[in-house]
């Protein structure tokens, strides 16, 4: 981190750490890291499917231009958690939430906030690469703009920029008219990330983005995450703990709908503070 950037972050940190008695207890990471600014603050977030409560009061800060990994066993609510951050959770039938998710200090669940607008600022990459099969590569990149009825006058520039940013441009520049489905799994996933980037989001949520990819494709996506972190705030859900250890600055461990521990990744993977975290990451689980 350059001196200028760190001083800016320090300034932001001061601005956002005004004492507030109603604040929930700070997580370990917060107390260790007062200098980074918070892009998102999740407060007392509960999520439900019908009557089943899948998130039981999560308080978690997500730091700006950092990678936060969410780990935990299947069914711990980690996917639901990220889907709450861009209001995708409510798309499912009978799904609802309570609590607040502050994006740059504003609650995305406030009455006058449109979920569609939130999703443009908080992009999402899914477990299974899902390019639109009826569109070619170029149109897939521009899909977010086109489907939203936005102008694609700079289409060619946007396509080249977005594909370059995911290191796919050189591989597909001569075949932009080909179907997105003709690409390999890893390329498809990078195409989906490019599609997300074309909308210029501020936050990128990734829900197990590599679980359908081979190790080489996984390494490429991880390298990409490493580059994207300079401009974007990233939250990645992963089953692969080594992946969290490799790419994340912060790691949060979820268990049965609760946040067990949140700290810097280097702390979580060398000396976690909680026995359940320890048991999970060392493979001593039930």
């Amino acid at each position, binding site marked *: 981190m350059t001196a200028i950037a760190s001083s800016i972050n320090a300034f932001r940190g001061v601005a956002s750490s005004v004492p507030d008695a109603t604040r929930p207890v700070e997580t370990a990471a917060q107390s260790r890291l007062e200098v*980074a600014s918070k892009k998102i603050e999740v407060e007392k977030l509960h999520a439900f499917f019908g009557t089943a409560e899948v998130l039981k009061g999560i308080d978690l800060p997500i730091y700006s231009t950092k990678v936060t990994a969410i780990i935990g066993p299947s069914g711990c609510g980690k996917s639901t958690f990220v889907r709450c951050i861009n209001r995708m959770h409510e798309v499912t039938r009978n799904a609802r939430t309570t609590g607040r998710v502050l994006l740059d200090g504003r609650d995305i669940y406030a009455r006058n906030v449109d979920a569609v607008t939130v999703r443009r600022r908080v992009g999402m990459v899914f477990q299974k690469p899902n390019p639109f099969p009826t569109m070619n590569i170029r149109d897939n990149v521009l899909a977010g703009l086109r489907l939203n009825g936005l102008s694609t006058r700079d289409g060619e520039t946007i396509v080249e920029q977005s594909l370059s940013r995911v290191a796919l441009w050189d591989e597909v520049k001569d075949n932009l008219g080909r179907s997105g489905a003709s690409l390999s799994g890893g390329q498809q996933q990078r195409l989906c990330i490019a599609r997300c980037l074309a909308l210029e989001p501020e936050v990128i949520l990734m829900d197990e983005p590599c679980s359908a990819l081979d190790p080489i494709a996984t390494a490429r996506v991880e390298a990409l995450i490493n580059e994207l972190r300079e401009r974007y705030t990233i939250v990645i859900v992963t089953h692969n703990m080594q992946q969290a250890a490799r790419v994340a600055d912060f790691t949060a461990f979820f268990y049965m709908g609760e946040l067990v521990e949140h700290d810097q990744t280097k702390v979580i993977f060398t000396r976690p503070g909680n026995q359940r975290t320890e048991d999970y*990451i060392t493979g001593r689980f039930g």
Partner: protein
Amino acid sequence: MASLHTDQKYEKELQRLRDRVVIMGGSVEDMLDGALRAFAARDADLARAVIERDRGVDQLEIEIDERCLQVLARRQPVASDLRFITTALKIVTDLERTGDLAANICKRVIELKQLAPAEFELPIGRMGAVAQGMLRNAIGAFIKRDAPRAARVMARDESVDDAYAELFPTLLQHTSGDQESLTRSQALQSVGRYIERIADHATNIGEMVVFMVDGEDVRHASLRPDNATAH
């Protein structure tokens, strides 16, 4: 350790690794015990027997290193497992050096075999006993994952250092001009240095055990900032 690994093979690998470290620790303890007894009794045969054992300790070091390497490569251990592996890797070096030093003591014993122990040598024996205790406690702390016990080992290092500092003037007092006296003093001085180093290695082991158990790095306190910083 609260619970076992879900993967029983992994659990066994770690268990076996721990066993090898314990065996190596036991061997080194035996070597030191033999060396100190040989020194006190000027028993050259015992000394030679101790020197013989050093090969076995060296072999254990190689084996343990290999096992650690395999676990690192194939299991990607994290948290307490990772701390255990790194601790094993480091204390194995300390144990191997301790074995070498015990062998060195024995070599000096063989040199000294014609010269009966003298009254003024007694502080060396006492240093030896303290260092031996430190080593035993350090290894015991490793086996039992007992951080307080390991911390007590570290606290005793200073007394050995002090005793070693006093050894030199004492030896100087009892050194006359003849060759024999000179040889003896030189050998005794070396034995004292070896013991002092053994205490240092025991201290290192203690520090690693504290790290292994609590996850806290207690070495070189002055080098670390009070708060961890982000990147």
